[in-house]
């Protein structure tokens, strides 16, 4: 078990009236209030080793993001276990805040702290969670910003940055604590193509350094380049798993074949 940085075993997560009370208690859920029941995650298991780079892709609304949020315990799974190293996060009484401090999370819509500068965004957790002294926190925050090449934005506020800069600050914020793993939820899909490039370059750098990452993304050339494994996710389930070459040459399931055809068509059109 300790072989894995992170492991998910038979995760289930349902939204909707059936669990609305539970969903409300988690209070990080976005879909609270949905009338119909949505089974976003149905019996999903996944193992990630140190240094792994895995990429989850699939149609929108299929539950990829929910699964990712479950891994970070930002959404609490209804059933199943999540391990971070040796620690089971789904057991009652686990200090989830401590666990989340060891997980980096990058959001699709970035979610920087709006009232803080780039530096402040990265520094906050270093000061309040890791309890680093002021100077050390500042130094580490600057290092993280340097790593993603946004030092020129250090004193800018989120609303003053471009989307690409902001997302790189988001990555720096996730990185600065030296987390065991970084989970990225469609980090480029809210950006225009030009800005996407900057963020992809940053991720490529991280990949080169051996950062353990699980990325939800549809950036196919990037996936082909850095991912060891691609995971096709549809209707709350993992449909097919394999190396990028498998998906680009001959996906074994029809559903994946269909999806890949469409996505490659779109990419070439661009």
């Amino acid at each position, binding site marked *: 078990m300790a072989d894995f940085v992170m492991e998910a075993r038979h995760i289930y997560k349902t939204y909707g009236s059936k669990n609305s009370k539970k969903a409300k208690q988690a209070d990080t859920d976005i879909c609270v209030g949905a009338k119909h029941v949505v089974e976003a995650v149905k019996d999903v298991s996944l193992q990630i080793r140190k240094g792994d780079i895995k990429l989850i892709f699939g149609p929108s609304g299929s539950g990829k993001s929910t699964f990712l949020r479950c891994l970070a315990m930002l959404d609490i799974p209804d059933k199943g276990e999540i391990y971070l190293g040796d620690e089971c996060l789904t057991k009652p009484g686990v200090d989830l805040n401590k666990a989340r401090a060891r997980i980096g999370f990058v*959001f699709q819509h970035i979610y920087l702290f709006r*009232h803080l500068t780039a530096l402040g965004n990265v520094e906050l957790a270093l000061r309040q969670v890791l309890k680093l002294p002021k100077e050390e926190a500042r130094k580490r925050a600057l290092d993280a910003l340097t790593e993603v090449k946004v030092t020129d934005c250090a004193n800018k506020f989120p609303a003053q940055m471009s989307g690409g800069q902001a997302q790189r600050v988001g990555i720096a914020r996730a990185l600065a604590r030296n987390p065991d793993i970084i989970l990225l939820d469609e980090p480029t899909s809210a950006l225009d193509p030009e800005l996407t490039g900057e963020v992809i370059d940053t991720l490529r750098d991280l990949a080169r350094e051996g950062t353990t990452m699980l990325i939800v993304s549809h950036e196919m050339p990037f996936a082909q380049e850095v991912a060891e494994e691609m995971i096709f996710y549809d209707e709350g389930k993992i449909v097919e798993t394999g190396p990028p070459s498998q998906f680009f040459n001959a996906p074994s399931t029809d559903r994946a074949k269909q999806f890949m055809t469409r996505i490659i068509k779109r990419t070439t059109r661009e």
Partner: protein
Amino acid sequence: MFEFLLDPIYQTWIVQGFLLTVEITLFGVLLGLGLGTLLAIGDIYGNKPVKAALAVYVEFFRGSPLFVQLLLAVYTVPAILNRQIDHLVLAFLIFGLNSAGYQKGYMKGSIETIFGDQMQAGLSVGMTKIQTLRYVILPQAYRIVIPSWTNEFCSLTKSTATLAYVGFMDLVGAGRSILINNMQIIPVWLVVAAIYLVWITCFSKVMDIIYEKKKIPGIELLMQ
């Protein structure tokens, strides 16, 4: 017509009355802000009994006149507790408690506008809910709430006029005392009204400036 303003005794009354008005308003809005914040957090996070208790509190203080609350406090609380309590202390408390009833609503509104994504972001870096509230959500909520808070200040300032009718020398109390001596109804009330007007206008202007200064840089770009 306004010669009474030259009388040093009247001057002292007016100044003292004005100071009492200012003190009790500032104390009231600040206690109201602190307590209102806690009430808002309780209302967002609390379980059903907590929410119900908060609702009773809020409806009592919003649903009955401040003047009646003041009378109740001054005339019944000492009797119930069976001890002498300085009326001024009671009045200060009532203003704070009353204002909290209103400010809970303002705070809840502004907390909820910035709530979802910022709370997720805070939790995602390993902060607790309380840390996220303290370092992320409240600093933003307090910026947003400034205009509502300024309104509350204006409204509470004028509510202090009720103090004169439970025996305090606030600004209206000073006006009444001067009237009893000189019988110049219109000039005295004009002066009292002018003092309120000037004070409230100046204070609101200062708060407007603070609001603009405290705005998160670049945020206006998002509002366009």
